[in-house]
């Protein structure tokens, strides 16, 4: 007796369709994608975690007293210990220089007899205005923002820097004229 096999039961293979990915590949990509994005997001969160929102650091802004506290033509070391800042009054103009050597960040010393700033670490020297002239320091000392408040106090903001090599020493924020 001859039996006929119904159409639906025959093992005819469908012609292979040109798929972008096979099922296996798709789940492979999905799995790796989920894994890598979880790792990546975790890494991003970690990087953010390492930058706290609040820093318990001293304020960069400080009150340096009245302009009349400073003698004309002298470099004041009054705030060097506490704030790492020199204050200079020269012909009716007051500037603040940051006491950080531009070579590797040591604190230079003001040698009043020689009229220069001298770094004890590697011997960099700077003129009174902060221009480097000897030793390994690659650029002049940095100046800081100075302003007068309503009561006539000198307010110095160490977070704002003015660099000679960028021509910023002419910026009116970098000095106070009396």
């Amino acid at each position, binding site marked *: 007796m001859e039996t006929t096999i119904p159409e639906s039961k025959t093992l005819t293979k469908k012609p292979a369709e040109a798929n972008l990915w096979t099922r296996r590949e798709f789940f492979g990509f999905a799995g790796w994608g989920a894994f890598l994005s979880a790792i990546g997001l975790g890494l991003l969160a970690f990087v953010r975690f390492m930058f706290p929102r609040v820093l318990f*650091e001293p304020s960069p802004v400080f009150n340096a007293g009245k302009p009349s506290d400073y003698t004309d033509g002298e470099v004041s070391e009054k705030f060097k210990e506490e704030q790492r800042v020199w204050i200079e009054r020269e012909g009716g103009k007051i500037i603040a220089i940051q006491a950080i050597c531009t070579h590797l960040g040591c604190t230079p010393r003001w040698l009043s007899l020689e009229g220069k700033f001298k770094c004890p670490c590697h011997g960099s020297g700077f003129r009174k205005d902060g221009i480097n002239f000897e030793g390994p320091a690659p650029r002049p000392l940095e100046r800081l923002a100075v302003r007068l408040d309503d009561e006539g106090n000198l307010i110095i903001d160490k977070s704002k820097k003015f660099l000679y090599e960028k021509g910023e020493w002419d910026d009116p924020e970098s000095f106070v004229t009396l």
Partner: protein
Amino acid sequence: MNLIQLKAKYEEIRKTIVDSYVWKSMFRHGYKDTPRNRVLMTASNVFLHLHPSKMRRHGIKVSYTWCAGGLTFLFFLVLTVTGVILMFYYRPVAEYAFVDMKYLQFDVPFGMVMRNMHRWAAHGMVILVMLHMFRVFMTGSYKPPREFNWVVGVLLLVLTFLLSFTGYLLPWDQLSIWAVTVGTNMARATPLMGHEGPFAEQMRELTGLITPRYDARSFLTAGTVVAAPTLLRFYVLHCIFIPIAAAVLMIVHFWRVRKDGGISGPL
């Protein structure tokens, strides 16, 4: 009981222990000195199996290898042990770090020995790791098939330097604070990620970040200055993060030595 009897008694006790079920469960193969037994001894013990079960004669020639890599690992182990011992007294807090270091030196029994072992082994490890690199270079052992292991070795060199650098801050004295100030100031000049480095301004315009507050340097120092948060951060990096990274790479390094054909031989 004379000595001969005593020896017989000792042998009897020894045999009881070595033949016991407990002993055999730990050490599956006896000491019987046959080539097969030696291989099995090494291969069936978790610590010994890190060694090759057989090695070529040239591999133990000190004049060829200087044993510099092995000694580097020994120094790493010394540093791990002495470091953990120091951790029992040292607190990575600005108020206490310096006095704890002095306390270890002047009061804690053997504290000075532990601190100095840690210090000198650290110097020794840096020197040895460079000697090892020099030896590998001079014997051409970086050539294929060992080229990838050279790369792993360079990463281990960097991690050794970073361990040395982060450990330098922990005494929290003037020398260490200033050394780390200078060291982290270099991170200002990191390309793209340092606020004084190349392309810093472009990155600042693009992302609004890369300021003194958010850049590669403040990532290290945990703020804009080297202060108490920096000490804690360096402590964690020094005691946990970098040693684990180094240990993982060491596993790869030692495994690759064996898989790439063992210690290289004279040409």
